[in-house]
Structure formats: structure tokens, C-alpha cells
């Protein structure tokens, strides 16, 4: 019994040390919010198209019965990181056959139209979320955010922030590959 007590300080130190190690991990983002949407059906929403952009709007119904997983990207013309991310997403669409849908979050339709005509439009459908209500349904905290939605309309993955830079692109590519959303594998 006495010997057992002698181990207690060591055990306490190990447990506390473990917590400190976890807390000090530079990879850990303490402001990251776990998403409740993962493995849940995509939320109910129905957005009209952006006036001046020649792709249809986006709703819950467009996310089901697709031949493969699709990606829903929340973006806005006023969001600077979105511009950098736009190039990455365009590359995914052009080179790897990614199917990309967009939610234009709290954006002026004219600004969005100009932005898309300047940079090109990789989106198959774009819903215009003027009030930000669809954004709340998706539980977003800002733009950009990107979701992978499975064939049956289940949310498989969520990426918060711009998919820019080697690390982020690698992380997102892994998620896309696991979901089977890429028509052609990377490197081909």
C-alpha cells in the first residue's frame, strides 16, 4: 500500500506533463471549433443564383444524387484570402475534375459578378446568400470555408479558412482522395 502511494506523485507528474505537451503542440489550434455537421446530412437551404452570373443557384436538393462527392465553398469578393484560394480551387476543378459548388456569402451581386469574370468561374452552381442565413445553417464562422459533401448529401469534411499553401492543400487533397471526390488522382 505504501509503495503504491510512492508512485502517486510520478503518476500525477506524467498526467500533467501529458496535458502540457498536448497544450504546447504548435500544430494544435485552440481556436478551432469542432463542427457538428460532420457525418450529418447537409443543412436545409435554398439560394437563388447571383444576378449577372450565368450559373444556377444552389440548394439542399443539388447536393444529393450526385454521381460522386462534391465540394461546397463559401466565398465572397470582399474576402481577400478567397482570391488566393480561388486559384487553388480552379486548379482542382480543371486538372482533377472536382465538382465545385459555391455559396456567395454576404456579397454584393455586382461585386461577385465582376470578381468571377476577372478571375474565372470554376463553380458549377453558386447560391447568393445575401443575409448570411444559409451561412448560419452551415455553421460557418467566417469566409472562406469549404465542405466536402458525399453522394447522399452527408457532410464528410469541413475546412475552415483558405486552402492556400502546401500544408493546407495537402490536407485538403487527402480529404478529397479519401472521399473519392477526385476524378483523376493527383500527379496524373
Amino acid at each position, binding site marked *: 500500500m505504501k509503495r503504491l502511494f510512492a508512485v502517486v506523485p510520478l503518476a500525477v507528474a506524467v498526467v500533467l506533463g501529458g496535458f502540457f505537451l498536448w497544450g504546447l503542440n504548435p500544430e494544435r489550434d485552440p481556436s478551432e*471549433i469542432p463542427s457538428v455537421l460532420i457525418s450529418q446530412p447537409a443543412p436545409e437551404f435554398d439560394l437563388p443564383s447571383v444576378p449577372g452570373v450565368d450559373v444556377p443557384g444552389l440548394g439542399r436538393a443539388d447536393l444529393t444524387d450526385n454521381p460522386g462527392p462534391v465540394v461546397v465553398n463559401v466565398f465572397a469578393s470582399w474576402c481577400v484570402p478567397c482570391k488566393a484560394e480561388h486559384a487553388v480551387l480552379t486548379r482542382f476543378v480543371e486538372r482533377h475534375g472536382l465538382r465545385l459548388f459555391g455559396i456567395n456569402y454576404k456579397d454584393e451581386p455586382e461585386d461577385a459578378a465582376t470578381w468571377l469574370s476577372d478571375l474565372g468561374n470554376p463553380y458549377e452552381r453558386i447560391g447568393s446568400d445575401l443575409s448570411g442565413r444559409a451561412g448560419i445553417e452551415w455553421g460557418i*464562422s467566417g469566409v472562406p470555408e469549404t465542405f466536402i459533401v458525399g453522394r447522399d448529401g452527408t457532410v464528410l469534411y469541413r475546412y475552415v479558412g483558405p486552402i492556400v499553401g502546401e500544408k493546407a492543400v495537402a490536407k485538403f487533397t487527402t480529404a478529397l482522395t479519401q472521399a473519392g471526390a477526385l476524378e483523376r488522382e493527383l500527379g496524373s
Partner: protein
Amino acid sequence: MIRTLFLIIMLGLPGLANAVEPDEMLADPNLEARAREISRELRCVVCQNQDIDSSNAGVARDLRLLVRERLTTGDSNEAVIDFVRARYGDFVLFKPPFKPQTYALWIAPFALPAAAFAIGGILLWRARRRASVEALSDEEEALVAQVLARHGRGDEK
């Protein structure tokens, strides 16, 4: 005079630190009070340590409007909070719910001191019992007396 004025202004400042704008407020003071109450329990997902009642973030404003909209359609306070919670998770609640994942969070502050007192108490009790055991029994006293008698008194050389 200036000091008093300064004090009044300074004491009044925290009350002004308020993000709710006039155009958001509801006409019904009852509903508005409930909306404020709910807003103080909901965390802003952008600025994380602020409630949506005092946050200027865009999403916080949207959520404030949403809370008021749900209230005017006749939702109860709980229904409104559940609506937001279904979309943003337990993270938006400043007061975490009591459920299996949060047992450690709620119980540990009480259980840890209780365990410490229990262990300390047991150790003290055992130490005291051992001290009382160390006193000689009658038999041992007799034996000591016998030995002393045989060898003469201890203080005589």
C-alpha cells in the same frame, strides 16, 4: 467636481460597451429582454471569448437577429438556444451542458478536493492509530519490570 464627473463617466463606460444596435432591437421590451438574456449565453464563434451580445462581429450580429426572429415567432428561450446549438455545437454555449463528455469538467472540481481530503484523512488516522499501538501492553510492562528487577535498577551502575 471634475473628479466626480470623471468617476461618473468612467463608471458609465462599461454600459456603453454594447454591440446591440438600435435597428436590431425588438419593439416589445419583454421579448427584447429575453433576447438580451439569450445573447449573453451564446458565444461569438469569431471572437470566441465574447458573447454575441457584446460582439461586433458580423456573424454575431446575424445570430442576434436570428435570436430575435425566433423569439418573435414564439420560440421559448430553450428552443432558441437549441436552434443555434444544433448548428454550432455545444461550443456556442458559455455554460457547458451536463452530459457524459463533460462529467469530468463538472465533477472534477468537487471530486478532486474530496479525494485529497479523504486520502489525507486516512493517512492521518492511520498515523494516529500506529502511535497508540506503540504504547506497551500490560504483559510487556511486566516483562520490562522483570528484566529491570533482575539486572538491578537502570540508573545504578
